[in-house]
């Protein structure tokens, strides 16, 4: 039987009675590899392009970033007292979803070491982070303040670390630094802070919610006082070496270490209490992967899209070109003056593709029948535009690097298993 061959745009199949071959070299030279950052809208987001790899590799990276990079999150919660309206399991669920600002690579996996005497799994300072929460709602604001201050004194003696402690240590550090820097910096730019600037809005919200003297409650006569429980009320109980390894005064490099072990955001609302209600619990954070529970995923999300390819089959001029520019995202097409030959025919301007990266492949232009015939849209198969949004414990580029290392580990594990199987077959 003669080999059957079929060709597609990406390659060709050759089928014989004993074999099936796929040859994806339609061009004599394969696409050269390159990786290049495209934009970093904020320290937690990264957009980069990866050219020259196969879709299975890019997809493997994406899958690993979402589900197989280990992170620390609250896993085991010991509830001592909960008289609030939030059910135990709901509160524990919310606690688990709180992201922790600690580099997970500095911790070990839980469930490996076993204590010798009891045979139970060992929680050590290398695999567990302990948090405590103890909130009592007073009858009114003043009473609540008094109670809180009393409890804070007690916590300080026990060595528990609250968000306020870290903030004060870091503020002292900043003011010390500023005193040194003041001699160097003459002026600081005083720009009018616009509310559109995310950082300004964030800071404003922070200072509004900051600490406890804020009228968050709806004010109507006779309405009882409501105590809002935020992540800043979580107290870190440093175990063993943890206070030495994660000191409160460390400034941290990247998004991981910095100022003890705290949640990434201190403003996450956990529960609301009415007078007399109490929440008292201890929570242990362990290392896990996104496959197990989404709380362990280090990325808000990681995704990729293929590079769009826009071809102008028939040249587009004048009003049609203007319409085309408006149908697409700003910047995809630009209007350029025509060359002399086209000028003779009476055209003034034409549309050229200038930034295909901005295109999202919406097919709005097809609503115009003429444009529909003049443009062909497709995707470039080996050109990926990744978008990685980190939750905050690791920088997005670091997450990509970790994904590559984990993929390599998987391959090495398979080789090991294969060698083991071979050895046992012969043995």
């Amino acid at each position, binding site marked *: 039987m003669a080999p059957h061959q079929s060709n597609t745009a990406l390659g060709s199949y050759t089928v014989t009675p004993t074999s099936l071959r796929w040859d994806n070299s339609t061009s004599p030279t394969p696409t050269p590899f390159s990786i290049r950052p495209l934009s970093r809208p904020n320290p937690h987001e990264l957009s980069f392009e990866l050219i020259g790899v196969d879709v299975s590799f890019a997809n493997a990276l994406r899958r690993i970033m979402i589900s197989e990079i280990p992170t620390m999150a609250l896993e085991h919660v010991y509830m001592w007292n909960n008289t609030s309206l939030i059910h135990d399991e709901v509160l524990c669920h919310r606690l688990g979803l709180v992201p922790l600002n600690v580099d997970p690579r500095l911790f070990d996996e839980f469930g490996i070491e076993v204590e010798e005497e009891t045979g139970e799994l060992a929680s050590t300072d290398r695999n567990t982070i302990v948090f405590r929460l103890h909130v009592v709602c007073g009858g009114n604001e003043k009473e609540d303040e008094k109670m809180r201050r009393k409890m804070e004194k007690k916590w300080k003696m026990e060595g528990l670390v609250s968000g306020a402690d870290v903030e004060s240590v870091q503020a002292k550090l900043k003011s010390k630094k500023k005193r040194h820097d003041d001699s160097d910096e003459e002026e600081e730019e005083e720009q009018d802070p616009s509310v559109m600037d995310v950082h300004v809005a964030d800071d404003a919200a922070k200072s509004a919610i900051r600490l406890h003297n804020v009228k968050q409650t709806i004010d109507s006569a006779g309405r009882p006082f409501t105590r809002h429980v935020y992540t800043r009320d979580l107290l870190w109980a440093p175990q063993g070496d943890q206070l030495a390894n994660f000191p409160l005064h460390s400034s941290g490099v990247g998004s991981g270490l910095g100022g003890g072990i705290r949640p990434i955001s201190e403003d996450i609302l956990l529960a609301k209490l009415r007078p007399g209600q109490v929440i008292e619990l201890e929570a242990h954070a362990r290392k896990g992967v996104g496959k197990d529970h989404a709380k362990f995923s280090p990325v808000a999300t990681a995704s990729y899209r293929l590079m769009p390819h826009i071809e102008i089959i028939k040249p587009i001029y004048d009003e049609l070109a203007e319409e085309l520019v408006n149908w697409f995202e700003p910047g995809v097409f630009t209007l350029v003056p025509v060359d002399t030959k086209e000028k003779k025919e009476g055209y003034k301007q034409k549309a050229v593709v200038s930034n295909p990266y901005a295109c999202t492949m919406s097919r709005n232009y097809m609503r115009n029948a003429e444009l529909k015939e003049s443009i062909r849209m497709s995707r470039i198969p080996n050109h990926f535009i990744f978008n990685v949004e980190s939750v905050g414990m690791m920088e997005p580029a670091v997450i990509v690097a970790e994904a590559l290392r984990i993929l390599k580990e998987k*391959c090495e594990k398979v080789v090991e298993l294969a060698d083991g199987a071979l050895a046992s077959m012969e043995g």
Partner: protein
Amino acid sequence: MSVNEVKIKRAETAFELRGTGPPTSRTIVLGDEDHTLGNALRHVLMNDPRVNFAGYCVPHPSEPVVHIRVQTNPEAKKTSWVATTGDDDSEDEEIVDGENNSSGQFTAIDALKDACHTLAKQCDYVLEKLEIAMPEVRVDRERLKRLEEDMMFSKEDGGDDDMEE
């Protein structure tokens, strides 16, 4: 420890070889794996000219198992590519004790191991280029190394469990 302790379900076998007959055709069953590794390995296997057939499947989405089917060309011989990874002596010499085929036939497992090595090399290459394109990766790697060394030293000093609670 507690009544509601949830244990992550692992697959039953981490690795299994299925297939009677010549060693050039095998189905490799990998436990605790999914499309992430399966598709990537299959693609690398397809690009190996000594491989006649390569395919993978996930038999059921509820089970963390991947089947990879590899069939190699019976006339193909092992080359010294595997030697670069460090298993220098055993692989490309022809007569080795314990080898299935003293003729150096390129078996299905050889193809799979080759593919794994290739994929690992590819990861290394991309990591290298990533470090050049985004320097914070190198900064992070060095910082981590330093931190881990510090932690190792403090561990060797005899444990400071008495310091804090």
